């Protein structure tokens, strides 16, 4: 475990240019272990780009990302994941033709405990470890109330279940930091309440640090302990939900000027 004074995630001066376009500009953020933080901002503000930079899908033009005291810059996405950063995607990216169980099992691959030779020979080790792996995955699905649909193809699930599978899959990577990209998109209020409970639950149960992007203010304000607001690739405010709500810049950027008099 990292010492309290050392943040789990420390991002400094992160900048990303696409061609001439600056998608993320001098983005900084620190997360301590156990934080439940939110990243908000209008569409196109650069939030997802920031996620992609943290997870290595894009390589930053400038800046540093330290996770657990180690630099993540230049690492391949799969290496970053193996170091302990899991994520979900804005527009659900499950493996549509695989079953729910297999979707989760894929994440266990680095910890499968048996290698290629074992699987080809189907030896004892394969049998034992594969069984263990599947059982672990099944336990996991049970936590998310997905055990009944474990043999369904992911593409045949309704939206809400797909979201849950995606979160389960990300958690199966055994991350310390979980990045959730719009987990509540397309959910109805009831599902959102469930989701909020679930996020609290997984954070406590797995000892996670969570960073999420979300548009549903109800959700964000209700769940996050600290917030960072982005607009045009830049951080314009940070603080607790209460502070953010009262920040005029945020109100202006997020709701537009017309809203100023409403709230």
């Amino acid at each position: 475990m990292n010492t309290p004074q050392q943040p789990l995630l420390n991002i400094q001066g992160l900048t990303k240019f696409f061609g001439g376009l600056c998608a993320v500009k001098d983005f900084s953020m620190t997360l301590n272990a156990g934080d439940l933080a939110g990243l908000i901002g209008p569409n196109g503000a650069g939030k997802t780009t920031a996620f992609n930079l943290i997870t290595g899908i894009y390589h930053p033009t400038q800046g540093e990302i330290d996770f657990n005291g180690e630099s993540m810059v230049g690492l391949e996405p799969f290496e970053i994941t193996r170091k302990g950063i899991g994520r979900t995607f804005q527009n659900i990216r499950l493996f549509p033709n695989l079953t729910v169980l297999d979707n989760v099992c894929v994440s266990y691959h680095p910890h499968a405990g048996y290698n290629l030779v074992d699987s080809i020979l189907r030896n004892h080790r394969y049998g034992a470890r594969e069984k263990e792996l599947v059982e672990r995955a099944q336990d996991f699905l049970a936590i998310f109330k997905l055990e009944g649909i474990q043999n369904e193809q992911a593409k045949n699930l309704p939206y809400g279940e797909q979201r849950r599978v995606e979160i389960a899959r990300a958690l199966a990577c055994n991350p310390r930091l979980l990045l959730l990209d719009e987990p509540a998109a397309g959910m109805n209020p009831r599902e959102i309440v469930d989701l909020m409970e679930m996020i609290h639950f997984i954070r406590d149960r797995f000892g996670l640090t969570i960073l999420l992007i979300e548009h549903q203010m109800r959700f964000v304000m209700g769940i996050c302990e600290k917030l960072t607001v982005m607009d045009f690739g830049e951080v314009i405010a940070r603080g607790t939900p209460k502070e953010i709500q009262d920040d005029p810049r945020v109100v202006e950027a997020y709701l537009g000027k017309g809203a100023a008099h409403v709230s």
Partner: protein
Amino acid sequence: MDFLLLSMVKIVAVLAYIYGLMWVLGHTKRWVKFLGVALAYGIIQIALSTEILTAFDRGLLFQASAITMVSLGLNLIYGFNGQFSLGQWGFYGIGAYTSADIAWRWVNGDASGFLAVLFGVVLVGFVIIGVGAFLQKVRGVPVISAFTLYLLGTVLAGAIAVGLAHLLSPLFAGGLGVTGAPGPLAQGLPLQLLFFVSVILAGAFSAEVSFLFGLPVLTLGSDYFGIATLGFTIVVNTLMVNSDTILPFPEMKGGRGMVGVPQMNEFAWLWVFVFMLLVIIVMRNLIHSSTGRTIMAVREDEIAAKAMGIDIAQTKLLAFIFGSLFAGIGGAVYAHSTGTSFLSPGTFTFLVGFNPLIIIVFGGLGSMTGTIAASFGWIFFLEGMLRVLLGQLGTEAPTWRFVLYPITLLLLMLIRPQGLLGLVEWGFLKAKIHPLRRSAAADAAADSAKLS
């Protein structure tokens, strides 16, 4: 019309045979499994020995088996891993020529082919592991540089292997005899054992070539990868045509075709059956494992796979290597089971190379059953049924064979673009359906979660 009926019955029978074989392989009782496999082998072996199955059927059966292995390999690369490859036929050819040359030299009193490939395969294997470990340590090496290092290592290893082979091959001279008068090692059971080894070596050789080729080329986008691999097939074919001028293999006789390739003869079905079964089992075991899941995950969504901690480059390479291994084994088995001791580059041109692709799309991408069934069905339809049918219709009709074939192809694609069997799997090939599991821990966890 009894010919038509008969050939249709043959198609159905061969599919039933495969179904039975897969069913029996998937049986939970071990003795049923072994007995069933032995029976499946035995039925055909007896039918072949007693000539109930004629040489015509035998030819179709063996060709279908060879193409099954190639197509399975391609399905692993394309159907399961999503890499559109047209290079499979090249690896098939490499396998065929490698094994043919090993065996040809062997029966002609020269062990150097065998030794060179053996040492080559082993040494290159070391090179791959060694350079791989080095690159792992250095990290962040561009693909072309990595390729260059592997290439240098391979060339070095190849040179050492050839040197060693020339040094050691006289040791075998006594046992091998000379051309026309083969010694004890070059005939009978030892020769059959050599076939076994050389088929595996040829497969391994194909796999190593595919590693070297795939390493840089797999970084290309889908269609570009397809064209690059098509280029590979064409380059391999060109080298075959010029094997006696550009390459130093006079016994391959270049474009005129290699004659005198040793044949498995009475053991042919044994080896064909064993290797086909081996390929099916290895591939099935591979797919239904953790690695297999990653292979499919890469097909489904590369970015999501990356985010789940999967090394995309390694996974693609792995599927490509295994696919090529199967192609190489298929080619090697083919070379020794044609029954005509003749191998010609004409078999390995790129146009014929579309066949495995057509087969796997027919059978259904990502379906092993589909591939196996389509391989047999396709050969028995095109080379069996259509040939027999049109042969009956007069002297002009055979010209129509390749007019009817593409029409069938078009209709099938229009009716079932997702392939005949889609994702259906038979018996043994089915993925395990895991029963619901409710452990105490899970219950407790679920309770504590209090999720509605």
